[in-house]
């Protein structure tokens, strides 16, 4: 089993996300993360889907996805040179006593403080999965109140 990153161009139609998600669930494929947004062409969206699958399953996933009328193109960019990014918002319990400690941790990760309240701090961080995992790990001891991650988006490097 290996983690694969699929970059999928789809028609920007109502229901397209349900079609893709439904296909994965009814054929027993597991989505690790899925991010979707419109491309430079307003009628086309890009989905970045991360799946864990062996080769045969991945081939079935790809072929079944291709059968969806709204799916235009699927690229497996797992082995391509690429930039992976994810954004996370982490709400941590923090007050005057440990605030500066938390700020230091955030600083090391080049994360931004986007909200400070009496008893909580919200950190915004972007990076690859490992970086966000590491920051989550380090902030856990302070008490994570809420964690929101966008799911990974990816882009192949160079002019390809």
């Amino acid at each position: 089993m290996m983690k694969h990153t699929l970059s999928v161009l789809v028609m920007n139609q109502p229901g397209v996300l349900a079609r893709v998600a439904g296909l994965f669930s009814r054929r027993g494929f597991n989505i690790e993360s899925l991010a979707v947004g419109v491309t430079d062409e307003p009628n086309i969206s890009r989905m970045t889907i991360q799946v864990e699958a062996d080769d045969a399953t991945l081939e079935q996933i790809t072929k079944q996805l291709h059968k969806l009328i709204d799916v235009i193109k699927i690229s497996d960019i797992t082995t391509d040179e690429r930039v992976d990014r994810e954004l996370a918002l982490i709400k941590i319990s923090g007050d005057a006593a440990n605030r500066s400690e938390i700020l230091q941790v955030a600083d090391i990760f080049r994360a931004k403080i986007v909200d400070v309240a009496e008893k909580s701090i919200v950190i915004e961080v972007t990076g690859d999965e490992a970086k966000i995992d590491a920051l989550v790990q380090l902030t856990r001891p302070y008490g994570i109140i809420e964690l929101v991650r966008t799911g990974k988006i990816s882009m192949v490097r160079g002019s390809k």
Partner: protein
Amino acid sequence: MNSGGTARHPLVLTPGLRVDEGVLVLGGLPVEMRGAEILIECLKAEKVEVVFGYPGGAVLPIYDVLYDADIRHILVRHEQGAAHAADGYARATGRPGVCIATSGPGATNLVTGLATAYMDSVPVVAFTGQVATSMIGRDSFQEADITGITMPITKHNYLVKSTKDLARVIKEAFHIATTGRPGPVLIDLPKDVSNGTAEFTYPETVDLPGYKPTYDGHPKQIKELARAIEAAQRPVLYVGGGVVSSGASDALRKVAEMQEIPVATTLMGLSAFPTAHPLSLGMLGMHGTGYANLAVTECDLLIAVGARFDDRVTGKIETFAPKARVAHVDIDPAEIGKNVRFDIPIVGDAKRVLEALIPQLETKTRPEWLAQIATFKNEWPLGYAKGRDGIAPQYVIEQISELTKGEAIITTEVGQNQMWTAQYYRFKQPRSFITSGGLGTMGFGFPAAIGAQIGQPNRLVIDIAGDGSFQMNIQELATAVQYGIPVKIAILNNGYLGMVRQWQEMFHNKRYSATVLSGNPNFVAIAEAYGAKGFRVESEDQVRPVLEQALAEPGPVVMDFAVSREANVFPMVPPNESINMMVRGDR
């Protein structure tokens, strides 16, 4: 309903109306049409001659236009019947079948029919009414999210939000349903879309960047297949419904005859190759012939064409065709490698691939292989025990086969009736066997027969049924009577849900849990109550005379054959067993 022979669309009759580059114009201005009118014009443009449906509140605008349109409407008695009839029509003719249902329960009643068509790759276009767009999502009266519900059982579906999109959507729907691997497409039409107006242009082409079926097989792969066939000692063709739907029967026969390759078919592929042909092995799989299963087990090259290695075909998958290289021809790339390993994959239309293969093949005889097949046939002839407490059901099918010379269109229900028909009816031409293979839908055969009969008015259409299955859509007798649709129904009546009872006998110590149909009605009286003819047959010597009389009747007929109650379907491959490990059963 129609009152004359001329086109009577109100807009078409308007003086000064003309078509300018596909757009209806009046005095230089494009004419707006109502959504329901656009729908009917699109159906005409698609040369739809008949729709099967059931009205209701959300489709009232469509039915109002249908009232005097040049399209025949068949009023079924349950929407499931409409979907199956459209399916049967499509399978019998090769043209898309069309059905209509209202919103909510009307739409959900189509679901089993759509799933049936989807599993067997049948082109059906279903129109459902929907509550007005402003009411969607509020749990309105008779609202159901039918596009959500049917997403996994349609090739594609649409919820039309604006009348101006309607013509394009319908064009796309027919294109998607009938091309590539065919399948059902559903269009959900909110009432305000049917009532709303838009300019009407029927597009000539579709723009679907995500949909480009591959028809021609890769030449290198076809060459590779030709080489593999030349090199093989013991090849077998394993062909399915794709051969029927692509019209590849002639090409298949040519390939088989040139190279003396025995042909085993799936349930869906049965009519693709004549049963009486010396190279025919009949059906393979769980209730296939012993010789087909042995041939597949012994073959060194398995050429799968338009078949999908269903578990009822393969049995235990690890030991399926264990000595063979596997070539797999299918128009759906996702089928290749889905269930079994493959050596030579070819994505393409069965007919085109086989036709491209023919010129690359030499003629060849295979006396040793055919001699081995002949010994399989001697060891495992099809045969059955004489009926113990009733007519042998297989005998009824043999008589139907003889009497119709294998030239009828046969539909079946699901269960023992279906398997015995597959074993004992001797098919001659494609599209003459219509059965729910993938989904296994009881209640399919009768409404499918109605659809098939309307599509092929000059053919004899017979539904071979069980007493259980027939009762699942028995209400369609009213449809057959109302329109004088002369389908013949042969019920193999054993008072059980026979196939389930057979499994209970074999695997559950004869504990016949919920399979005894002691409340069966008098089928003759039921038929007569509907205004059809009914016959009851209780002895073997009456089978032939009653069949002769019934098949000659001009209208719908129900024949109720009292068959041996605990007759079983044999041979049988027990579940999860290799297909060469057949149970022979009693003879």
